[in-house]
Structures are given as structure tokens and as C-alpha cells.
């Protein structure tokens, strides 16, 4: 555990030593802020409209449905498709390019410790992003009255979604010495996984169902609504485990032939 934390701490510090962490945080808070403002503004317009129609005394539109859900489902997931590759692209590519991978692989660390350390380090930065999101959400509590419980599902969903992408991105980063390639391929893979449920629209074959099931979007739906469905949790945990496992295989191959 101590070894894992040593590697994780090193990774997390590396993000903040370089411009990457600040770039990711800036892009994220900028985009997040713009969309958050837009949804809030739309919501307010909607409330006024209902008041004009004489809805005095009736329930005002649900904050969770009108602001939080579209923000999470429609926006954050898409922003993350672009930002997670920025986080994961250096994980192994940079170590391979600079030769420091030799230091890690000749230290008395198991592959598992290296991989978990790197994964947790990247997850650390990702959690900083999530905290930013929830600072925005906190404003809703000051000026409105959203339901708190669905937010737990939102948070869990965002965490699992991001962790899944991080694990896959890390695996992709272990293929190459070139960060740009690692980032671009990760983005392409994420995008494909994101839209693979479109197959639903034109195919009802079994293969179509599989593609639809594999889609990242299908499984985020419930979380965004504020519902935790075990099968969605299983899906994302599987993505994480598969990502970590494939990274381990890739590291083995790396040792067999540099």
C-alpha cells in the first residue's frame, strides 16, 4: 500500500508541477461554468413563464431535472471525453519516452502497485475536477432547494464514468512513447464508446444490442436521473477492471520486448 501511495503521490504532484493540471482545471471550470449558467438561466426563464401562466402556488419546476441532469448527462460527460485523454496520455507514454519506466520496472514494485499507483494519481486529479463541479451545485442549495439524495447518485455516476475512462486511457498510454498519439487514440476510443448506442436506432440484431450495451451513455442515464442501478455500477466497475487488467498485460509485453 505504501508503494502504491508513493507512486500515486508522485503522479499527482507531476500533474501540478506541469501545466496539465491547471489547463485541465481551467478548461473544465470554464466550460462547466458556462453551461451551468445557461441551464440556470433557462430554468429561471421557465419559472417566470409558469408564473405568467398563472401557476401561482403550483410546484416550481424541479431543479434536479432542469439543471443537474442535463448538466451531467449532456455536458460533463462530453467535456470529460476530451479532458480525460489529457490526464491519461502522459501516464505511461512519458515514462517510456524519458526512460524513467526503467526505474519503475527495476524497483522492487509489483506491476500491480505501479498500475494502481498511477491510476489513483490520475483519479486524484479527476476528483479535484469533481469537487469543482459540486462547488457549482452548492450554489443551487444556497438559492434553491434541489433534492440532495439524487446528487449522491450523480456523484457516484460521475466518479465511475471518469474512473472507467481513466483506466482505459491509461491502458492506451502504455502502447506508445508519444503522448499526442496516446491522447488522440484515447479520445477516439472514448468517442466511439460514447456513441455506440446509436446502433440502436437502425439495428435490432444481437450485435446491435451488444454495441448498445457497451455504450458509456446508456449506463450513465440512470445516474443522471439520480437513480443507482446495480447493473450500471457493474458495467462501470467492469470497465475499470478491464482497463487495469489490459494495462497489466501491456506492461508485461513491454518487459518482454522494449
Amino acid at each position, binding site marked *: 500500500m*505504501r*508503494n502504491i501511495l*508513493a*507512486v500515486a*503521490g*508522485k503522479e499527482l*504532484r*507531476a500533474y501540478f*508541477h*506541469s501545466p496539465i493540471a491547471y489547463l485541465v482545471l481551467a478548461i473544465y471550470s470554464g466550460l462547466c461554468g458556462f453551461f451551468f449558467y445557461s441551464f440556470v438561466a433557462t430554468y429561471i426563464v421557465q419559472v417566470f413563464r409558469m408564473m405568467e401562466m398563472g401557476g401561482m402556488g403550483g410546484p416550481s419546476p424541479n431543479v434536479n431535472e432542469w439543471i443537474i441532469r442535463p448538466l451531467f448527462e449532456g455536458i460533463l460527460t462530453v467535456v470529460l471525453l476530451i479532458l480525460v485523454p489529457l490526464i491519461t496520455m502522459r501516464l505511461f507514454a512519458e515514462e517510456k519516452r*524519458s*526512460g*524513467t*519506466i*526503467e*526505474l*519503475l*520496472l*527495476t*524497483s*522492487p*514494485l*509489483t506491476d500491480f502497485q505501479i498500475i494502481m499507483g498511477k491510476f489513483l494519481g490520475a483519479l486524484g486529479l479527476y476528483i479535484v475536477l469533481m469537487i469543482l463541479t459540486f462547488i457549482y451545485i452548492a450554489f443551487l442549495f444556497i438559492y434553491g432547494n434541489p433534492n440532495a439524495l439524487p446528487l449522491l447518485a450523480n456523484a457516484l455516476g460521475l466518479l465511475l464514468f471518469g474512473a472507467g475512462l481513466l483506466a482505459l486511457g491509461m491502458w492506451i498510454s502504455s502502447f506508445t512513447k508519444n503522448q499526442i498519439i496516446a491522447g488522440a487514440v484515447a479520445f477516439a476510443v472514448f468517442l466511439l464508446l460514447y456513441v455506440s448506442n446509436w446502433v440502436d436506432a437502425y439495428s435490432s440484431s444481437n450485435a446491435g444490442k451488444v454495441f448498445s450495451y457497451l455504450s458509456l451513455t446508456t449506463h450513465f442515464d440512470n445516474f443522471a436521473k439520480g437513480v443507482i442501478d446495480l447493473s450500471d455500477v457493474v458495467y462501470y466497475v467492469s470497465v475499470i477492471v478491464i482497463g487495469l487488467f489490459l494495462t497489466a498485460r501491456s506492461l508485461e509485453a513491454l*518487459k*518482454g*520486448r*522494449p
Partner: protein
Amino acid sequence: MIEVHQLTKRYGPTVAVSEISFEASKGEVLGFLGPNGAGKTTTMRVITGYLPPTSGKVTVAGYDVEEESIEARRHTGYLPESPPVYPEMKVSEYLAFVGRIKGVPRGELRKRVDEVSEKCAIADVQSRQIGKLSKGYRQRVGLAQALIHNPDVLILDEPTAGLDPKQIHETRDLIRGLSGEHTVVLSTHILPEVSKTCDRVVVINAGKVAAVGTPDELTQRLQGFESVLVTAEGPREEIKARLERVEGVSRVEESDGANGRATFEVHATKEKDVRAELARAVVESQWRLLELRTSGMSLEDIFLKLTTHEEQIKN
């Protein structure tokens, strides 16, 4: 301390290292000498556990590098050809990180970092960013990294490559200072390095061991190749013929001859110093001897002989 037995390493169809065997005993500095691409780095990577051997057995401090890899790595410090440093980290931060992953107990970490910084003469840059250091400093940070957990075995891949002469000198002194306490294997293709730092040398060429011995032994075995340069004034052909008749001379080559002077390169047979006889031969024949010197079989020459005439060395 290190035992390499019948080690073979293949990358696909290419054989990088073929059935090499050698060992290094405790406290010894073993030089690993060979041209680029001879298999030095591959061998070192197998010893450090970075690459698995295709066949053969390698043990470090009694631990098999494949079967008991983690234990073996605990006893090994490794400096790859380019120091494995993170440029964005500070020196002390980097050494503390390496100390942690190499299993230095938390309480001793600070002390170890200071100790190795002192030893490698980087104490004055501890709070500087590694990326901003000169190549020489970075190399020493790499060395400090390899020493941080006080390993029994140190594997140094071309530790002096790319340094200036002063830094090379300092690094060699440092390595000499490490022997006794640590078993050191260092690779190099620079020959003076070997005679200055190593107790024993393994010459490796094209993936095979070409010779093993102390630097002195290797030099002696090759003395037979020594040649003498003779410059004299006089009739060229006659001088040449006379020199060829000197006992112990195997071959005379005319190498230069301007202004009535002639310079000959005289090759002697093994274990025979022909210089006195050559001088006498020239002087007694009433020619004027201008210069006579051994062409000083440099270590570079020996190296070339070793790696190009293996069969002669092995006798």
C-alpha cells in the same frame, strides 16, 4: 554476488546475447567492455530484472532475477544509460520518491537522501529542479538514485557517457570509492575507464564473451602485438632489410619517408622486447637513428584487437 550462467536473450529472431557466463564477487568492480551493440545494455537489463532472459540463469545476491524478482531488485541499484529522472521534480523530492519505492524505511529516508547527496556531491543542488541541472549533475543524481537503498549490487550503464573530462574523473573516483562496500558492474566502451576503475574486465563482442581478466592481464596477453616505430636517415631498402634481420622481428612496414628519412613500423613477435636490438642494428650500420619509440599499444588498440581478432586472443 552476481552470477550469470549461460544467459541468452533473443528479441524475436535477433540474438542480442548468446550464452554468456560470468560472475562478480562481493566488493568487486567489474568492467563490461564492448563496442556499441555488443549486448552490454541487454545483459545489464536482464541482471536488473527489466528484461526476462530467454534462457539461462541470473542470480543477484543469491536471488534468481526471474523467480525472486522483487527480492533481487531490492538488492540492486541501477543507473541506465540516460539517468531515469523526472525533470519537473526537485533533487531531494526525487531521491525521496525513489527511496520510498525502493523500500527505504520512512524514518531513515531523510538521512539516506542527505547521505547519498553528500556522497555524489549533489548536496548543493538538493532544492533545484532536476530539469534545470547540467548533464553532469543529472548523471550524479542518477547515481545517487541507484545508491539510495544502499544496494549490494550496483549496475551502471555507461556512467561517464557525455560528461566532461573533469566530471569523468570525479565519477570514476566515486565509483572506486564504492567498491568494497558494493559490487559494481559498469559498462563502457571507453577503455581508459576500465584500467582506472575496474578490478576485472569482461570483454563482450557480438553477444559473446571475448575475454575475461584483470586489465593488466589483458594488456599483457596482447603485448605481442606491440610495435616499434623507428625513424632513421639512410638508404631505405637497406635499413628495412637490416631491421627485418633483427631477432624477434616478425614484420617491418615502411610507414613514412620524407627528406631522406625513413620511418618503419616494426612488429615484434610475442614476449620479446626488440627495441635495444633495433637501436644497435641501426647505429652499427652507420645510419643515423633519429627516433625510436613503441607505438604504445593503447588500450583502444587492445580493444580493437580483442573485438576483431577474438580467435587469436583465445589461443
